[in-house]
């Protein structure tokens, strides 16, 4: 007998089968994912999802007998009361005792339920979305450079001297050229002195002296470390893609924003955050809320505390500019802005917003999205008769800037669609 411990074998042997399965069930899984998204809380967007998909696209049909036709015998255990000749009413649910086991191949029409991992879920979720202008910052105008090890070279800076590599080559050369070792020379010298002390005959002493001189000369000619041994570590300079992003969340928290509106805004921000985390190695989030004044707050306060006051949108934009200039230099950070508001603004402020946005904010940003949240009472907002102050103001800016987008959202079910529109592959339309 032979015992093999297979536990250390690589995991995920059936991963590729799973991927094939997901690809196969793509249509079903996707609609299930979107359905799930509609229902679940935004706070757990990032967890995996249990999806139940109909077996339609993934059934494996085989020829089966139809148990409802013809005459069949069933032989089964556990008789308690029946005797020969008894008539038993046919069990409802059709086939009754001859039941097929609930195997995945049973060909049933029941939904087939399994759990998607977080990665798989988000992949499905963001499948056909693309970050606008993601490439622009990454390679072209980058200033940051990373050093990357790239083997060894014969020339270089002393500080890059690779001692192990140099010594290895030196040793190889010494061995191949048979350079006498220090210990060997010492031993010969001692032997010579001993011979002299013993008073051996001249010839022997002369031979030993010759040998010693020969070896000493050799060890001088063949140096311990030769310039040809020397190696330096080599570094390539590779431009570092800008993989850090900061996301500014701007929200109006004045009295006119209802809880439902804030909830909508929150969902939008969460989606954006999840999305950015998938594309960038590091994502900072800055929350700026404003009434008639703006302040930077933490997430908790941002979403859950209430403020009262008027609405001056430009204060938030100013705050954003201030923070960006102080902490997020544009050559290192990809800046994204998202603003949510119900569209109310202090009348005279709108023109200031326009100039701030067009003149300062947009040139700084990779992308700026403005989402106007409604109260959802009317379901769809298409029937809105009157554009809000801010909407009208921003509409002036929009045509000139490709990376500025504005949308309206009325109820939670629309969030994903709007988000999808904003980030759909192949550019944005404002």
């Amino acid at each position, binding site marked *: 007998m032979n*015992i093999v411990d297979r*536990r250390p074998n690589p995991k995920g*042997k059936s991963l590729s089968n799973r991927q094939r399965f997901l690809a196969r069930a793509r249509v079903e899984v996707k609609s299930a994912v979107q359905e799930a998204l509609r229902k679940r809380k935004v706070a757990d967007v990032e967890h995996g999802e249990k999806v139940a998909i109909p077996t339609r696209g993934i*059934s494996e049909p085989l020829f089966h007998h*139809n148990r409802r036709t013809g005459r069949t015998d069933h032989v089964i*255990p556990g*008789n308690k009361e029946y005797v020969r000749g008894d008539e038993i009413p*046919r069990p409802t649910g059709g086939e*009754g005792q001859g039941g097929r086991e609930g195997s995945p191949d049973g060909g049933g029409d029941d939904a087939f339920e399994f759990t998607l991992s977080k990665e798989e879920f988000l992949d499905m979720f963001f499948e056909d979305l693309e970050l606008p202008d993601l490439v622009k910052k990454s390679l072209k105008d980058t200033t940051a450079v990373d050093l990357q090890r790239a083997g060894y070279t014969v020339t270089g800076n002393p500080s890059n001297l690779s001692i192990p590599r140099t010594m290895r080559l030196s040793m190889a050369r010494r061995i191949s050229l048979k350079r006498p070792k220090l210990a060997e020379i010492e031993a010969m010298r001692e032997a010579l002195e001993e011979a002299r002390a013993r008073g051996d005959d001249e010839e022997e002493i002369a031979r030993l002296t010759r040998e010693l001189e020969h070896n000493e000369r050799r060890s001088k000619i063949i140096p311990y470390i030769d310039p040809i041994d020397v190696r330096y570590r080599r570094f390539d300079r590779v431009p570092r893609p800008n993989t850090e992003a900061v996301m500014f969340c701007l929200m109006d928290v004045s009295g006119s924003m209802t809880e439902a509106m804030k909830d909508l805004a929150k969902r939008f921000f969460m989606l954006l955050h999840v999305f950015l985390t998938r594309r960038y190695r590091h994502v900072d989030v800055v929350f700026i809320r404003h009434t008639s004044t703006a302040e930077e707050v933490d997430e908790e306060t941002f979403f859950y505390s209430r403020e009262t006051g008027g609405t001056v949108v430009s204060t938030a934009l100013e705050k954003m500019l201030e923070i960006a200039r102080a902490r997020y230099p544009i050559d290192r950070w990809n800046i994204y802005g998202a603003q949510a508001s119900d569209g109310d603004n202090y009348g005279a402020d709108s023109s200031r917003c326009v100039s701030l946005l067009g003149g300062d904010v947009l040139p700084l940003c990779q992308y700026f999205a403005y989402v106007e949240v409604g109260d959802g009472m009317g379901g769809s907002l298409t029937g809105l008769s009157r554009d809000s102050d801010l909407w009208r103001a921003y509409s002036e800016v929009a045509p000139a800037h490709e990376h500025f987008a504005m949308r309206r959202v009325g109820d939670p079910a629309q969030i994903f669609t709007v988000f999808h529109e904003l980030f759909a592959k192949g550019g944005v339309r404002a």
Partner: protein
Amino acid sequence: MPNTGFADAAQLRAEMPLFTGPNWDFGSLRRVNDAIERIAFDELGLDIYPVQIEVITSEQMLDAYSSVGLPLMYKHWSFGKRFAYHETLYRKGLQGLAYEIVINSNPVICYIMEENSMTMQTLVIAHAAFGHNHFFKNNYLFRQWTDADGILDYLSFARDYVAKCEERHGHEAVERVLDAAHALKEHGVNRYAHRSRPNLAEEQRRTDERRAHEEATFNDLWRTVPQLGDDKDDPEANEKQHEQLRQQLGLPEENLLYFIEKRAPRLEDWQRELIRIVRNVSQYFYPQKQLQLMNEGCATFVHYEIMNRLHDKGLITEGSMLEFLHSHSSVVFQPGFDDPRFSGFNPYALGFSMMSDIRRICEKPTPEDRDFFPEIAGCGDPFGVLRHAWANYRDESFVLQYLSPQVIRQFKIFQISDDSSKPSLRVEAIHDELGYRRVRSALSKQYDLSRREPDIQVVDVDLTGDRCLILAHYVHEGVLLEEKTCRSVLRYAAFLWGYGVKLLEIEAATDKVLKTYEAAVEPV
């Protein structure tokens, strides 16, 4: 050699238990295996392949589940689906994992889970590495159909071949062929050994012989007699010609995948090879489907016997024995038909009971047993009888031969007939004097694969017309095919065949066509 060292040491302290406590280690696995080996060879007379025990984690066990229990398998989405299915059940706690999986190869590979306690490992080794192993090596169906030496090599070839095809022809193209072949896999097996095809030399010799015979018996007079085939419109002649064509094609043919692989006009070579792979894997499993009851029964009987003997010798502790009995009794639990847990006969339970009963009949027969089993009752050699049964029967014939009235009474087995034209079911036989033989033959039929699976054959190909492939389902007792799955399978069949496929449901007794399905090739 540490191996013999262990064996000797174990012999010296034969009264000492082989292990105590729940934790296992490689040393005790080896000691237990050696102890079991002595019992299996010297006392039970088992004959087994060499064993390779592989310790795996629960995730690896799920992997093995999804690739139908084989250690290697080609890639296909359906295995991913199975994995997802089992994983969900397992994570929810609805389904425990099997303690072991054993693979019929030479050497036999026996997976055991790391979570098992040492008692469970002992049980698993006795069950799989000895019970199943003996059955694999000795049963005639496995010997005839399963190439234990070659299966792992073949699977590794299959996996690489499929991967190579995917690289060359794309995932989708390969998937389409595999999907279609999977739909027909249950009709991709040879149910009987075929006559081997004569080789070229043999063919030549027969042709020569035939010619010599014709020359020897030549008589010019026959030339003047009018020939049957001269008249082109003669329906009888056409019929004869048609018959000849069918014979050349080897029709009728029940192995649909074989026929398609060899004869489908538009398949490419790699597609034929893929079909062949599916066919071979299916063929490998064909005996297992016919031997479930006996295979599990044999393994359960063997582990029960071995564990008891280990206990009698003082090699396992009382605590282990109790743990074993607890697990054993849940394995051989048979819920009644009206129990929500019921899903047909539990092969472990029925197999184990039948085999234990054979032992009882051999050792302490009652007059009833002498009546039913005159040739084995009281013969005193239960293991000889059992080894003979394990080697020479399959589920269907085993039940027919050995299901005793005692077991029928124990399980309270009864037979009901379900005639769809009548409003109610009828109890045909129960566990009484009149019923034993009826129940026995009815249960045997229930295990007969040729009755359980639809009897479908290739009967004809329209060679002169639209090349339509004609299949026939021979309907017994009026049981038709399920319509929905039948249509989907036929679409797959049409894809492989390359032209239309027609399926006739023919009543076997009267040759009457009851229903016709047709499927055309769908544009890709």
